[in-house]
């Protein structure tokens, strides 16, 4: 944990040099263009704090995002980053993890990118279980395009594309992740960044795919699911007597709660499951980034280069 000066004590523990690691280590000169009060600010703060808590330096992690307001987070951090095509960050992140398994790979995208356009990748990444942390900024609306209903908008939610109210039932990302075999499923609230940071840290520590669905108010286009709306409804599962996140059946029931009471915290965690990287034969000789380049056949390499000229 960081001390009062924001630095960590890892160097005293003899593990690695983290002298001087603070949230400022992740700051760059780019000013966020998010709306004032946007929930994405809480996610950005929580992510930086989680990395400091875990004593992870900027060069030891990569943040992969898609398209949307929240996906701009890559621009606002001093860290390895890749803003991919809409809905594709999980696929790219899996590639990054396979190339360099020693990196902490973190995907940050919105509910549209993550559960809509990237819904296919979401399901298959959950069952594939790569060691990736997936933070979804779920504001229940497409905000970057000025407010259309999204995969998680409640039925009846009125927007410019649903003036009579959304006709569809919303995706329940927690249930979907559980059904697909995710080994870590959590939900946080952007208005409580300290708790959210602890969830993100737990997700990064978890070996395997970790989903952290973040209730993230869109202050401009979603006037229903506001900070106040969430604050009146959320409660912490770890304060529920006897709740065991290792119990799949209990997690399944918990994940169905939505409406008057919304659970936040670690809903489900199954430990000891090998991650996807361990099953990939090409990685048996070690990380791709550490394998000698000379092993690549020159003729094959030339042909490959031609593809990009």
């Amino acid at each position, binding site marked *: 944990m960081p001390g009062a000066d924001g630095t960590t004590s890892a160097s005293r523990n003899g593990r690695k040099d983290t002298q001087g690691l603070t949230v400022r280590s992740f700051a760059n000169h780019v000013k966020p263009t998010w*709306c*004032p009060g946007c929930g994405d600010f809480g996610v950005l703060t929580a992510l930086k704090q989680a990395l400091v808590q875990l004593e992870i330096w900027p060069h030891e992690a990569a943040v992969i995002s898609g398209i949307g307001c929240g996906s701009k987070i890559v621009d606002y951090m001093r860290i390895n980053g890749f803003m991919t095509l809409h809905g594709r960050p999980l696929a790219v992140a899996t590639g990054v993890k396979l190339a360099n398994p020693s990196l902490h790979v973190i995907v940050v995208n919105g509910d549209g990118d993550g559960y809509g356009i990237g819904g296919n990748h979401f399901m298959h990444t959950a069952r594939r279980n790569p060691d990736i942390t997936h933070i979804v900024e779920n504001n229940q609306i497409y905000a970057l395009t000025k407010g259309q209903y999204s995969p998680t908008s409640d039925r009846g939610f009125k927007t410019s594309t649903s003036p009579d109210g959304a006709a569809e039932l919303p995706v329940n990302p927690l249930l979907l992740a559980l059904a697909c075999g995710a080994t870590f499923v959590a939900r946080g609230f*952007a*208005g409580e*960044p300290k708790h959210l940071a602890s969830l993100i840290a737990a997700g990064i520590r978890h070996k395997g795919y970790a989903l952290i669905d973040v209730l993230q108010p869109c*202050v*401009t286009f979603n006037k229903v699911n506001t*900070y*106040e709306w969430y604050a009146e409804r959320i409660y912490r599962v770890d304060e529920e007597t006897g709740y065991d996140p290792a119990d799949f059946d209990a997690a399944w029931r918990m994940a169905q709660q939505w409406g008057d009471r919304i659970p936040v915290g670690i809903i489900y965690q199954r430990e000891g499951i090998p991650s996807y990287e361990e099953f990939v034969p090409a990685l048996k000789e070690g990380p791709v980034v550490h394998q000698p380049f000379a092993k690549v056949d020159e003729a094959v390499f030339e042909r490959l280069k031609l593809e990009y000229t």
Partner: protein
Amino acid sequence: MNFIQRVQERATALSEEEAEALVRHVMYSLSQVMDQKDRERLAKKLPKPIAAFLRSDVEFADPFIDEQVFVGPLVNGLATEGLYDQTLGGLDVLSVHTGDEATRRLQAVFAALKECLDETERRRLQDVLPGDVSQWYQDA
């Protein structure tokens, strides 16, 4: 003039219901950045209906709340779109002023709050406010 009316007077063009919602949002944000004992001390200085807006279920302040998260609930309650101007490439001339409007309304509540506090309590409150919010409070 009661607390809500004083906020109405400063924020201008707000109905009583809007002013009350504004105060409720600011009290919610204040609750998030104050420890329970500080919150209870503040509550004693405020009119009871206003003190009732402070949350009672938060034991410790969240140290990671910055000025953006602080103003979030308030901005959620603002009109933030509706004046799209095609001569400006579709820019919404209402939304571009959201930040300034949020600050102005926040300061209207802060000014009314400061009238309820002595100098020591005013400083105590300023000390718990994050980032720019502390300056806005001082200027209110």
